[in-house]
């Protein structure tokens, strides 16, 4: 058995003596007999060396693909060494939520800097300290828009279905009606949207993903105009890397921007821990869920940072709180902040441009193969959909070459993703395999 308890038997006796007891179990006398656990049916404990072996064997049962052409909400980007090394600092790792501002200025400042950078990316005025992941950030963003007489939620059909499902779960909680806006040629059907909002004076918000699930760019400005003309709010779900080259949602008219921060320096990690980010225009600031760090001054007149706007929060407002979020993903937010600092504006633009250029090259080469026609036209970022003659066979062949192919969609097409981690030679090799072994 392994243990992290320092007390020796002798020390336990000293403590028990102070309590006038002879056994620790006297402290548990209050437990009703019926609730007492017998011996747990789990294995005996073990030392670190044995644990290391056992868990390493588990990790070894997963296949790490050297080449990944799959995204769909989780993206493989290069993570600079500085990001990993800086964020593994023990103090950052083991601190609690910075309630005690005087001994937590480092963490508070790092979050304030994160908030600023995320606002810069999205073109917004305010950000919270982070949320759990992109999907719950989308759901919380939608929840922010509900007003007394406005609770209709509209989500575009071009949204990542996992995000839509999460929004739907939150709506199951709140009882808000959720409607899907149909797609047209892979993009949000603007006419259908207008017609829907026209009929629903209680529409609270519209959620549109940019770039959308198929990698395509939506006409954000036009959508914003429609949404605002009906008095609803527009929530944009955005990929943070794409904002290195594409216009910020705050500029093209979104009221709220939410998204998955994983591409900003977090590993794929089988889907988590990731990072939900959430920003908004100034008027909505006090509706933001979760923690927010603000600037103030201390008793000595210096600049200081604190958790602020806590009046919104559940430990004060209880059932009237705007959200139940307490902890967030602070270490992931720190990671994103270090990533953005290391990349800087030029680096972020470079990553985005490379993703964009390589995806174009890949799309052109793959779609030239018979049976792999591109499904949509128009601007796309780093994902695109092609037809596929036999997804099962295609993916199996690619897997045998260490390649994780595009994600199979319901209609038998493949959703491909190309990031800066993919080289031209990887794409050429992929095309050769598709031509040589799949066709």
């Amino acid at each position, binding site marked *: *058995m392994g*243990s992290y308890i*320092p*007390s020796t038997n002798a*020390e336990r006796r000293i403590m028990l003596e*102070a309590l006038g007891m002879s056994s620790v179990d006297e402290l548990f006398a209050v437990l*009703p007999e019926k*609730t007492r*656990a017998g011996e747990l049916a789990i*294995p005996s*404990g073990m030392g*670190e060396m044995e*644990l*290391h072996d*056992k*868990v*390493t064997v*588990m990790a070894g049962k997963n*296949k790490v693909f050297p080449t*990944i052409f799959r995204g*769909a909400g*989780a993206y493989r980007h290069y993570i*600079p060494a500085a990001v990993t090394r800086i964020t593994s*600092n*023990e*103090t950052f*790792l083991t*601190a*609690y939520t910075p309630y005690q*501002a*005087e001994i937590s*200025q*480092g*963490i508070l*400042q790092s979050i*304030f*800097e994160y908030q*600023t950078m995320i606002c*810069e*990316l999205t073109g917004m005025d305010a950000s919270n300290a982070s949320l759990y*992941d992109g*999907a*719950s950030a989308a759901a919380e963003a939608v929840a922010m828009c509900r007003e007394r007489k406005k609770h209709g939620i509209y989500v575009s059909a071009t949204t990542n279905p996992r995000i839509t499902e*999460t929004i739907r*779960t939150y709506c*199951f*909680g709140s009882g808000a009606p959720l409607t899907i806006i149909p797609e047209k040629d892979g993009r949000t059907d603007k006419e259908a949207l207008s017609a829907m909002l026209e009929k629903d004076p209680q529409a609270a918000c519209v959620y549109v993903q940019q770039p959308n699930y198929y990698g395509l760019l939506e006409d954000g400005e036009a959508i914003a105009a429609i949404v605002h003309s009906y008095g609803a709010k527009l929530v944009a779900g955005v990929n943070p890397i794409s*904002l290195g*080259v594409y216009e910020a949602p705050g500029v093209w008219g979104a009221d709220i921007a939410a998204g998955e921060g994983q591409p900003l320096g977090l590993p794929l*990690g089988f*889907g988590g821990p990731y990072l939900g980010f959430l920003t908004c225009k100034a008027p909505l600031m006090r509706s933001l869920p979760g923690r927010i760090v*603000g600037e103030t001054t*201390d008793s*000595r007149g210096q600049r200081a940072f604190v958790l602020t706007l806590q009046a919104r929060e559940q*430990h004060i407002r209880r*059932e009237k709180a705007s959200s139940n979020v*307490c902890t967030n993903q602070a270490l992931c937010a720190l990671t994103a902040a270090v990533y953005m*600092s290391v990349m*800087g*504006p030029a680096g972020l633009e470079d990553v985005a441009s490379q993703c964009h250029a390589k995806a174009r090259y890949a799309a052109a080469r793959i779609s030239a193969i018979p049976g792999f026609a591109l499904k949509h036209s128009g601007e796309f970022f780093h994902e695109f959909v092609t037809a596929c003659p036999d997804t099962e066979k295609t993916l199996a062949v690619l897997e045998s070459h260490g390649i994780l192919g595009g994600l199979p969609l319901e209609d038998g097409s493949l959703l491909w993703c190309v990031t800066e981690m993919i080289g031209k030679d990887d794409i050429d090799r992929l095309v050769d395999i598709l031509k040589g072994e799949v066709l």
Partner: protein
Amino acid sequence: MDLLFEKSHVGRRCSILASCDVPSVEIPSSYARKNPPRLPQMSENDISRHYSALARRSFGVNDGFYPLGSCTMKYNPKIAEVLAGLPGFTDIHPLQPNHTVEGAHEVLDTARSYLCEITGMEDMTFQPSAGSQGEFTGLLLIKAYHKRQGDDGRTKIIVPDSAHGTNPASAAMAGFSVVNLPSAPDGCVDVEALKAAVGPDTAGLMLTNPNTLGIFDPNILEITRIVHEAGGLNYYDGANLNAVVGMARPGDMGFDVIHLNLHKTFATPHGGGGPGSGAVGCKALLSSFLPETGRESIGRIHAFHGNFGVVVKALSYIMTLGREGIPEVARGAVLNANYMKKKLAGTYTMSHPGLCMHEFVMTLQPEKEKYGVTAMDIAKSLQDRGIHPPTMYFPLIVHEALMVEPVETESLETLDKAIADLLEIHELAKTDPDALHAAPTSTSVGRPDDVQAARHPVVRYAFGE
């Protein structure tokens, strides 16, 4: 200390990417960004120094005693970080085909099986990322259950007034109305009041046991029976599980659903406020409603499989301790708390006398009245002594509360040092209260102006605009 943006210099950068090996493609102007984001422009050296300085201005478990009540700030084993960092875990895509991620499923399945055994539950999901999301998920299970039963009138969740604020907030998010249940004088559930509160509109009860006063409710079996008999379900808030882990199982207490904070009881690091994991366990009657796996699932609460990396760490911890070690956690935590409480009880006023479980609450109301010294003053004075303060002003039902949770990974000499510091501070409260009002003095900043922060919120840097 300057912000990153104040250290930024136009033109500085790190050298990360290779040059692009395919033809570059221009972004159509209708989509192209007009103004680049004002991210910092810095050398790696400057970035490294910046974050080193920020770390020095922070306080982790590695920096000292952290008796933050209800947060279970125990030692986070280093091996867990190493294992969660194995490429076989960090470099797998969440949408890989199942046969390529058998190890990941083994982690989840093993953790599920061990945690069900530890809690007395029959199924579990790891989708929720933290306690709050766990609560929300657990309540949706209850909601789905009643809906499935066609029992649409069950719209109320009963929550004791000693509960964490998250409980009522989660209930509201899940679309329930909240019935606040006042505590009995002993801090526990007022059984008669509960009997009066339950009815055909009762969806369920949310309970932390031991509660936020550190008291194990001796009527727990009766309480859960009352709710069950009224047709409701019992929700166990696992925030305080460390007190009884391995010693008593919530499932055996009559609870139907539970959330765990893996970052508390199961020793995964708090990360300055996340990521955690709010795994939700349930009895078989709720299994079909679970996210991801359930046949009649309430739906997804996370895009993928929750905070998987955190589960790897928690599983490592459980495997290390094993069936013999898990109950020792509760034994150690409760012994430490009672020892500290006993040593302080002659000097400080306890919210409730007698034995406690893993934590206890002191009230500084007498000191406030006699010497003008508040719970805040005591807390800030501890900072100057290298101790992270206890939770302040919670639970709300105790005035001037300080909630102390010493956890099992702290040694006798650490407790003795904290006891000595607290006694010394108490002496100062009498002899030199101004010294306490002035605390902290050894920190990089003094007490911040919270009111100013909230009245005129500045939540991002202004770039000299």
